[in-house]
């Protein structure tokens, strides 16, 4: 099987989607000539030209809004926001426009666009370039939300996102672009919206998505060495949310931890913990524990940045306490 990076898998997904459907195009800052700030669209302009890799001025609301309009007019835009933090600029177009159009116009039209971006910590990029803002998106009805953790998912989830009838926000993790895995992209992917159990265990379940899946896997490996076996669920998409898989694992083990890099309060972990508490109450032996980022902005200091978000160590330590 070929070795591929997360970045290369995304690049390939773009190339194949552009090749397969003339209506697909990419629009955003530095997506064409530059090849993307993180190199995801590198080289694509050579094959597909500037009409399909549209470089824009630094105008985030208009980038997202243009994609909304193009989707309504019948094409399949992939808009790129260089950093998820720039969602602050484009929030109106995403949340008041893209998310609402099908509903408020009585189902007459949808907005089949993909908004690609990247978030998370790991580069000392500071408070305005390191956030995990998926909860903003997840909180808005009408938006789908994908957060791939693996090379395989980066490829397949992007291809699947481009088949959806509604707006999909696709958040990559800046700390995963160089992740290299052996993958067979020809292997058929799970259905859109399905979570994957990355590891099975009898003692408890760790629910995760995006980069923290890898931290959860590393923690699970360490725990296994101590005789504690945990399941690790990679949600892959947060909307749709595959709660059936979560329920099954929680019912099996009776103990659950949810892991996310974003701040704790009103975050994705809060939603998951609430649902598990409500829907699996009779099976739970302990409170559902959230292992999340701190309720603080991200610092540029390497030490403070690292300390602000959960790593394998905190997950493992918490699991030992919970499962003891």
């Amino acid at each position: 099987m070929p070795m591929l990076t997360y970045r290369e898998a995304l690049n390939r997904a773009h190339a194949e989607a552009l090749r397969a459907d003339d209506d697909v195009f990419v629009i955003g800052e530095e997506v064409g000539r530059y090849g993307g700030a993180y190199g995801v669209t590198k080289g694509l302009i050579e094959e597909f030209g500037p009409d399909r890799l549209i470089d824009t001025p630094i105008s985030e609301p208009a980038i997202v809004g243009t994609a909304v309009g193009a989707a309504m007019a019948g094409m399949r835009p992939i808009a790129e926001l260089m950093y998820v933090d720039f969602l602050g600029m484009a929030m109106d177009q995403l949340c008041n426009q893209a998310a609402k159009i099908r509903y408020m116009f009585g189902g007459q039209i949808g907005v089949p666009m993909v908004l690609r971006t990247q978030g998370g910590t790991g580069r000392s990029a500071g408070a305005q370039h390191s956030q995990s803002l998926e909860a903003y998106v997840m909180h808005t009805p009408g938006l789908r939300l994908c957060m791939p953790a693996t090379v395989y998912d980066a490829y397949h989830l992007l291809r699947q996102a481009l088949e959806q009838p509604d707006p999909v926000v696709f958040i990559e993790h800046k700390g995963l672009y160089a992740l290299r895995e052996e993958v067979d992209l020809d292997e058929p992917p799970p259905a859109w919206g399905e979570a994957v159990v990355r590891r099975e265990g009898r003692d408890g379940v760790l629910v995760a998505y995006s980069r923290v899946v890898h931290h959860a896997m590393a923690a699970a490996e360490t725990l296994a060495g101590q005789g504690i076996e945990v399941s690790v669920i990679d949600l892959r998409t947060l909307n749709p949310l595959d709660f059936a898989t979560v329920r099954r694992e929680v019912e099996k083990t009776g103990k659950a931890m949810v892991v996310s890099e974003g701040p704790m309060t009103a975050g994705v972990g809060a939603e998951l913990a609430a649902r598990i508490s409500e829907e699996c109450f009779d099976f739970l032996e302990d409170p559902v524990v959230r292992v999340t980022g701190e309720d603080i902005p991200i610092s540029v200091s390497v030490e403070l940045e690292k300390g602000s978000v959960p790593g394998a160590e905190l997950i493992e330590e918490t699991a030992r306490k919970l499962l003891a």
Partner: protein
Amino acid sequence: MTTPAKAGPAPATPVTTPAPERLPLYREMRRVRTFEERVGELFVRGESAGSMLHLSIGEEGAAVGVGTTMRDGDTFTTHHRGHGIFLARGADPRRMMAEIGGKETGYCHGKGGSMHIADMSLGHLGANAIVGGGIPAVVGAGLVARRRRSGAVSLAFFGDGAMQQGILYESMNMAALWDLPVVFVCVNNQWGMGTRIDQATKATALHERAAAFGLRAETVDGVDVLAVRAAAERIVGAAREGRPGFLAIDCYRFFGHARKDKSPYRTEEEEAEGRRRDPVSRARDELLAEGVAEEELDTLDREVATEMDAAIDYAIASAEPQLDSMFRDVFAPDQPEPEPVRTRIDRVLARD
């Protein structure tokens, strides 16, 4: 009362200011240049917090020409490429360098970094990593200055990239509408990351847009620090009287967007040509031509190098912030700090 916009860059100002008065401007520009070179060195030595360091080399004329016209009480915001402006306004290079290294002794205790250096005591309302993000704050500061009759001006510094952000136009319109003591300063280094200004807009005579809102607006050649300062004195002076303005300063970004960017999107010829537009060497040549002794300038350069070497040493010798300092300053000092995740987990799991 709107001044008609000039058609383009002003012609080079004839050298009329005597050398002794211009020497401080040269020194300030040399300080900015050398500071930025040392920032590059800090990165190479692995002592910077990350690689998102945006050097303002080539923009010294803009930083010093405008920065030195500000008075105590004036306020300003800067952008991700704002080291030079802040230094020209009187910042301590040691604390700046420490901030760039993410150290406790930095201006923001290692929380902000290169893109968020600020010192409220110098009127610096903050550097910003969101393109255009710092612009509207000067409208607010200008509103306060007018209401309190403080005589202060508030200046927003930003790059040509921000010229395509809607927030600039909302801000310029409000400043003009309310006759606020506000100045918008566009440091036009020709490149927004990998996008040349003419790839971002058809309307490259940037001051014309500001004039359309009723602002006094000029474009000036940033290679000539005296021309920049003269223009800044006109525009800032008028703003102090309640006539808001806009100044575009043409210059060239000598290096890549950030430290890891090798500028593959522009030709070597273009870079060579652009780097000939060097405000520091131009000022030096002019001083020499006027009879200032080369040894005097060499001595000055050495003094600046020593100062900036000390800034690097200071940054490297400074301690990392204490880990628990990350919970400080989310809210005001008398407010409870957020509970750490680890503490909460222990509390929750300690239940029986």
